[in-house]
């Protein structure tokens, strides 16, 4: 996946927040590419595994995780930094990947996605014969 591919996705990022009147938050994400997979690490504090909805459709990887509010409702706040809401982000992956092999793990509010590349896109070592 090239840098251009990542940018392309953010260009065409849809705006579901306007339709649903909900504010979505962009999770901070680390992306690491290895020879045979992409690894996405996203911070989604407050979300449980059952709150997360990960999908891959035609080259677009969508992360959605609903987070529970940090404080119970109707409490008296002394101090508040940032609101809590669903996390949402999409990435376009232009490298062929294996959708059935995508694994997601959500532990302590940190989401780890492993997206294996399809066989054709994996790095292949070429054996060189000596003379």
């Amino acid at each position: 996946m090239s840098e251009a591919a990542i940018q392309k996705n953010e260009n065409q990022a849809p705006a579901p927040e306007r339709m649903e009147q909900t504010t979505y938050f962009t999770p901070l994400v680390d992306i690491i590419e290895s020879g045979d997979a992409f690894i996405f690490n996203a911070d989604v504090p407050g979300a449980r595994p059952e709150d997360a909805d990960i999908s891959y459709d035609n080259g677009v990887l969508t992360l959605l995780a609903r987070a529970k509010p940090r404080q119970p409702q109707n409490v008296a706040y002394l101090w508040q930094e940032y609101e809590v809401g669903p996390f949402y982000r999409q990435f376009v992956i232009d490298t062929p990947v294996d959708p059935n092999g995508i694994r997601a793990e959500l532990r302590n509010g940190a989401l780890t996605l492993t997206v294996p590349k399809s066989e054709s896109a994996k790095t292949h070592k070429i054996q060189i014969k000596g003379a």
Partner: protein
Amino acid sequence: MTQTQTQPQTQNRPGAQAGGAGRTDLSKRDPDRGGGGGLARPSDFRRQIDRTLDRLMRQVERDPIRALFSLPQQLDRIANWPAIDIAEDDKAIAVRVDVPGMNPDDLDIEVSGNQLTIRGQRQDEWSDNQRGVRRRERIIGSFARTIPLPAEADAQNIQARYDRGTLTLTVPKVPGKGPRHVKVQAAQGTQGAQGTQGAQGTSR
């Protein structure tokens, strides 16, 4: 970046804060913290600024206006990392901190006098310029945030729990140790005469 500069973006509620007597200034900074903000080491802070500017430059190419307006929020996210909410009821004060992906053993909570300090270190094995690293946005490094506790806080019985990436501290309140109000007695004969007395005072 100081706390006052960041307040408009962070949904702080100074009104609620000022509502009760004995509430201390929650924006008070940890004196041994460098760099500014929650990241304890200037190098961590610097790295995060670099990452944010990287991200900003990508956004500028797509949508400069939106990128520009998002900058304060993005910087705020670093300056106030990790994000803290504080709420209270009659019995306790609840402090909640978003520190995802950590091991509870890496969190250190210290009470000294009326200062509650949350420290921690978030690590991961990938460095920014390592081969294969495509994006680095998450905030890592050591951080410290200090919260002043009110007089009625029972510092001996603070409970801490880490769940779903959120650290919850419950600080019980000791009944009767809250702010006391002292009634002001009016001195005899001064009522209604303050205005003239004040005028006399300045003319002397």
